């Protein structure tokens, strides 16, 4: 059986790939996709923990994952809503062009 640690390694690697993507890509839709990726990374760790770690109430990790599902749907909706509003205003989707406020 694959040890727990392998799943955790996968989750952590995926988390950091997503983090890099958030910092690297200019397009806001890409940023949102990277957020979804990172949420998935956390989900993997949650399900893995749920499957491997003994607990008085097994399955809590899976339940947690359902909440993260709900959240990622909500985040996607709000994020894409902001993206569309931004597009209407400026015809651009580059996050880094928005620096009207600084200092």
């Amino acid at each position, binding site marked *: *059986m*694959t*040890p*727990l*640690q*392998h*799943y*955790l*390694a*996968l989750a*952590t690697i*995926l988390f*950091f*790939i997503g983090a*890099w*993507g958030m*910092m*690297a*890509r*200019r*397009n806001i*839709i*890409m940023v949102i*996709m*990277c957020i979804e*990726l990172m949420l*998935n990374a956390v*989900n*993997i760790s949650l*399900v*893995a923990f*749920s*499957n*491997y*770690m*003994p607990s008085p*109430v*097994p*399955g*809590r990790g*899976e*339940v947690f*994952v*359902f*909440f993260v*599902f*709900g*959240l990622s*749907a*909500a*985040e*996607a*909706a*709000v994020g*894409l*809503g902001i*993206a*569309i509003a931004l*597009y209407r205003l400026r015809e651009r*989707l580059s996050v880094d062009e928005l620096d009207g406020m600084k200092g």
Partner: protein
Amino acid sequence: MEFSPIPFYIVSALVIICAIAMIYFKELIYSALSMVACFMAIAGIYILLNAELVAGAQVLIYVAAISILVIFAIMLTRHRKGDFWLFFHRQSVVTLPFVVVAGIVLTVVLATAAYDSSEEALNPPDEEMARLLFQDYSFPFEVLSLVLLVAIMGAILLAMRERRR
């Protein structure tokens, strides 16, 4: 029940490759398709983890709902063509070593720690899941519905064309 680790390696390689591809593609639509593939592969990971319900939900929510949402957003907006730096932030070069080093260190630390894990798969049957979700965690579940309500409201508020009154 004895599992071979080989399927895990294949699926996780797929996950990571798709994730990197998603970030790498310049065309947003390719990125979105890589994302779909990545999420499908993650559903495979859940099956390996003995969590079929989660895998099913993963397919429904990520592969179907969220991906379609993203693809719609991509199609609603026009996109520019150009060289690499039009898509990648210049700081991505600076951040890369930090992310790689931190990622490796954290992965090593977190994946070599001695967890008190059990030998058998513990994820409960679906009935137990349902009981947990709708009984023990009924309160946060209700609050989650509010989160989704706010999200819908927000999407309408931000994206809908104003009715002239």
